[in-house]
């Protein structure tokens, strides 16, 4: 009988650990001034939308009977609308809605994509084929059209239905990508090792496969935020999205675009420019995250926004 082998004296290769992985990602992110700027601006806009109203004397639903269509002034910093509403208050209120629609919708969309894509990729066979067929079918009719057609249904009801619908038409392309990532990950040895150990399938998907895609999922969710905000704006512009009395950046733009060429253009330009800044900043953060989490990515797969 031989003796127990002597311990190996070599030291581990790097002294970085899991905490350092987070630190590494953070340091890569912080190296890009544009990404930091984006993050700061997004946070500022959040503050603007949610904290701003507490510091401003006008509320969004308040009518100032002495100031119809007033240009930006000391009392009304960005002026008023034809009906006497304060533009700044309206914009703050609108931004709240747009932000939250973007956030909830993005998380929902990525979650659906992750579950559908991973299930299709992992189980193959009929499960896979039916999910793929479903994806193809939904992709045929652009979400914009369907949501527009369905808009009378959520007239007067909560805007949450709208968010769910937005998410419902956003997940497909990501699901496809996740499916193919799952297909290749399924063939990797650590998945086989887990299966041959007896680990149940659902555990493999949620403990091994999806966490190893976390970089992609985070980046996708971030990009979805801007896509969904843009989708919301497009639909609300025509009255197909957020319904009165709710206000969003889309409804504001829809209400006031015709004034853009006139002297009262501030009604359009203020919310429009803030919207562009918001979307731009979110995209910068997404781009920064992509570089920080996955510096070698140069993917040709990807998506634009559902509607611009």
């Amino acid at each position: 009988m031989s003796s127990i082998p002597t311990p190996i004296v070599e030291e581990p290769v790097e002294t970085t650990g899991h905490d350092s992985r987070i630190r590494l990602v953070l340091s890569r992110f912080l190296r890009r001034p544009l990404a930091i700027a984006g993050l700061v601006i997004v946070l500022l806009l959040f503050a603007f939308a949610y904290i701003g109203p507490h510091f401003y004397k006008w509320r969004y639903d308040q009518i100032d009977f002495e100031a119809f269509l007033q240009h930006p002034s000391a009392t009304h910093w960005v002026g008023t609308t034809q009906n006497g509403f304060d533009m700044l208050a309206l914009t703050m209120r609108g931004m709240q809605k747009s932000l939250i629609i973007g956030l909830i919708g993005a998380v929902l969309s990525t979650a659906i994509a992750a579950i559908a894509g991973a299930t299709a990729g992992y189980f193959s066979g009929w499960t896979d084929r039916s999910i793929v067929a479903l994806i193809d079918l939904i992709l045929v009719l652009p979400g914009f059209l369907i949501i527009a057609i369905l808009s009378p249904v959520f007239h007067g009801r909560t805007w949450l239905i709208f968010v769910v619908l937005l998410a419902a038409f956003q997940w497909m392309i990501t699901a496809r990508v996740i499916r193919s990532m799952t297909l290749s990950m399924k063939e990797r040895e650590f998945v086989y090792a887990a299966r041959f150990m007896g680990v149940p399938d659902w555990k493999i998907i949620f403990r091994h496969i999806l966490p190893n895609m976390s970089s992609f999922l985070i980046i996708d969710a971030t990009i979805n935020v801007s896509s969904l905000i843009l989708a919301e704006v497009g639909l609300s512009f025509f009255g197909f999205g957020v319904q009165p009395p709710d206000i969003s950046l889309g409804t504001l733009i829809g209400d006031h675009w015709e004034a853009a060429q006139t002297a009262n253009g501030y009604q359009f330009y203020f919310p429009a420019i803030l919207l562009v800044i918001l979307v731009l900043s979110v995209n910068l953060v997404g781009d920064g995250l992509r570089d920080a989490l996955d510096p070698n990515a140069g993917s040709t797969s990807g998506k634009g926004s559902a509607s611009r």
Partner: protein
Amino acid sequence: MPPLGIFFLRRVVYLAVVVLIATSANYFLAATALNPRSNFEGRNPAPPPEVVDAQLTSLNLNDKTPVVQRFGHWASGVWHGNLGLTIDHESVNDEMRRRVGVSLRLLLIGSMLGSFCGIAAGAWSAVNQYEFSDHATTILSFVILSVPTVVLAVFLANAGSSFNDAIGHRLVYNTGEYTPGLEAWTSAAIINRLQHLVLPSLVLTLQGLAFYSRYQRNSMLDAMGSDYVRTAQAKGLRRPQALIHHALRTALIPMGTFFAYEFTLIFIGSIFVEKIFSWHGMGEWFVQSIQKNDVNATAAIGMFVAVLVLLAGFLSDVVTVILDPRIRRG
């Protein structure tokens, strides 16, 4: 039949099936979500219910008739080439014929220009990675992709107006497709149309450029860093030749698949452009149909879009086959 022929035949059959399912689904959605009856009920004085019913039935819009029956009626009409009546008692076919032309004229130039410029810009960016032209293109694309179509359209419409003011002459128009009153097909009329086309096309071109340049840049960078480009140089090809002959050819292949996707985006985008620039095309009609609860028109437009999307998908396959010789051999 050669394998390529079979491949395309299968695709066509598959696409036809999908069009059928999508169109039917679209009809059901429109028929259940929209409420034409409310158009009549909102009038003052309100017409008697029997009159309303008669009107609705004549248009195949009566919600008291089971939706399956209405669908059957509509579908058999479509099978014979008749898309039904609009809520204003006009022929859907005629309206569509008018408007399709308008939309096509609007979209064609802008989107094609956008894709070509985008691909060229993307490839150029990749080759000059990290230099000024690369940064400039990337930033420009980034910003454009962050601007909603509506805002871009409004902005350009105003810019056109200001431009006109600045030069003291109305060079570009931001309303309508043409100025009425000019005799058709004269050079003056054609120039006039072009003047109306500039601004809306610019919206689409800029968006197409931003979209394609990003993806082409990435695709090109991938190809440039690959082993086979290194082999090409090891054979004695100079770097520019290696990049064009080996990298660019390979990098172009994924663009075929984007074609279909970009097409959908362009159509949706046209809805906004038509609204802002007052072109009376399909996009404008779509919005109006929903607002007017015009089920038949909505269903017809939905079918139109489904067919177009699938055609674009088919074209996408064709382009990919052309670009990727490996698929031809199977």
